[in-house]
């Protein structure tokens, strides 16, 4: 409660103070950077590594993810193959590294859809009020009522099975939470004194929305976006696991686990390694999101 009061009363909320307040904030953020907790550093390192995997997979592995050595099949993890090989003798580590780009891009697409569509709905509903709020509010209620994984499954069924569509479906399933948060933030900001001042100065609705309401509502939405990025990785992996993403020989992380499932009894590393990669990446994203959240409330 105190946090909310402090943010509304924050002088940087006023348009005159905003430019002067910004550099000071950036300065304190830089100073804060030096005493980041160890777990936050680890999380950043993990995410940078995965980013590098996605951009330049060839730098990290020379093995071809799609071509295997048949008489090397089901090699357990060891020096030659760090994470072992699958039923066709393909290097699992190479498949995971080459699957990063697709898994990361999908999660980014999903979050982008959630932020943009959900944000727009929340912005309009919160600012316009009245009929627009009532209609959009019902739409959000309905989207929230359908369990999000089922909603994603329904949407990907309608769009057709591939990884891009799974990403879009995941984004659609996240629209409602962004819309709800954005609406709440807009309602909080809308009644502030500086919005009233801007309106008395003759600012148009569109100008006030973009120049004053949006910048003040955007930080909590970004913090949710980071959290949702992790959840999107999980949802997309779940969809890929059920076979609603690209078919093999694609190597999305969820698909790797699904492929490995048939060999669980004699080659458990085929399930455990890609599963743990998903868990570690999502854990890093969650840690960052929680850190951003506590910093914001400080």
């Amino acid at each position, binding site marked *: 409660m105190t946090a909310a009061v402090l943010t509304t009363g924050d002088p940087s909320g006023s348009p005159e103070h905003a430019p002067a307040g910004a550099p000071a904030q950036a300065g304190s953020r830089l100073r804060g950077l030096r005493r980041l907790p160890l777990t936050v550093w680890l999380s950043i390192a993990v995410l940078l590594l995965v980013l590098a995997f996605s951009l330049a997979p060839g730098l990290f592995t020379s093995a071809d993810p799609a071509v295997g050595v048949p008489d090397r099949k089901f090699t357990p993890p060891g020096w030659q193959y760090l994470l072992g090989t699958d039923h066709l003798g393909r290097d699992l580590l190479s498949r995971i590294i080459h699957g990063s780009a697709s898994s990361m891009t999908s999660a980014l697409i999903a979050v982008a859809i959630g932020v943009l569509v959900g944000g727009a709905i929340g912005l309009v509903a919160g600012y316009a009020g009245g009929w627009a709020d009532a209609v959009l509010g*019902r*739409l959000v*209620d*309905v*989207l929230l*009522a*359908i*369990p*999000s*994984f*089922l*909603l994603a*499954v*329904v*949407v990907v*069924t*309608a*769009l*057709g099975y591939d990884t891009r569509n799974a990403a879009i479906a995941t984004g659609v399933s996240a629209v409602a939470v962004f819309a709800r948060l954005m609406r709440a933030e807009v309602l909080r900001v809308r009644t502030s004194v500086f919005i009233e001042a801007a309106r008395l100065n003759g600012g148009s609705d569109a100008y006030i929305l973009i120049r004053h309401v949006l910048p003040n509502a955007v930080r909590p939405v970004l913090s949710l976006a980071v959290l949702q990025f*992790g959840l999107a990785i*999980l949802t997309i*992996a*779940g969809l890929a*696991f*059920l076979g*609603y993403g690209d078919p093999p020989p694609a190597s999305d992380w*969820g698909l790797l*686990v*699904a492929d490995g*499932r048939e060999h*669980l*009894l004699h080659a*458990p590393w085929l*399930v*455990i390694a890609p*599963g*743990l990669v*998903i*868990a570690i990446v*999502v*854990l890093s*994203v*969650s*840690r960052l999101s*929680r850190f951003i959240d506590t910093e914001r409330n400080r």
Partner: protein
Amino acid sequence: MIALKRVGQAVLVIALAYVLVFLVLAAIPGDPVSAQLENPQAGYSEAEKAQIRSFYGLDKPVLVQLLISIGNALRGDLGISLSTSAPVSSTIGEAIPSTLALAATALVFALLIALILGFASQSLGEGRLGGLVRSLPTVFLSTPNFLIGLVLIQVFAVQLGAFSIIDPETAGSTAFAALTLAIPVSAQIAQVFITALDTTTALDHTEVALSRGLAPVRVFARHLLRPSLLPTVTVCGLVVGELLGGSLITETIFGRAGIGTVVQKAVTSQDVPVLQAAVVLSAAVFVGVNLVIDLVLPLLDPRLRAPREAS
């Protein structure tokens, strides 16, 4: 009056969910009936094709199909499966007990895990162990539930022989499937529970209770638990969505014949009526449970009761 309005809103949301799911699924390019009919080897005449299509109502415009479907649903007729030709209501009905057993067991497990984490978070303090306990919910939430399920099968069914993977409906198999489903759900409950406990611990009455020399377990049970239950019960309603959505993957992994498996088969065979019914049923359960919780909460907590003159 307020209760009636809430019920009305819930019914409206379920009805709109029906329409939304119908319209989204109408975008599917093909359907199993047409695929079967257009198969040249099946050798249907044009007249037979038209007759079969009109039997399934596939010859009408989408909006007319929607109105017919809503009318039938109101009379309790959910249509006929496009892939098995069985009534949708019986397909769904047969799957409900399995999912209900799974979800209920999972909820009990999740509450137990959350209770243990909550107690540990308050009694271990700020040290390394306490920090570990507090970070467990994030770890649970970040682990894909298919990984949890497959590891449980590998360790407990294959290596230790604690349960059989051949017969998924035994108590042992149900328990491990429920544990798979419970772990991410317990994390969501525990996060809210621990936050609420922290708030309550900071209150004076807790300090008084501790200074009277009461044992920590007793303080937890008598003084911390009840004030912290309110947000916890609310989040229990929200996790119903996770229980239903998560059952899709859990049932697939453990080979259970529940709603999740019905959904998965319906998706694979593009069986729109079954998918429609299963998804809307899940939404209805979610909305219904949360409605009940909303209405019951004031009974649990006198602070929420509306002043008499307002009602």
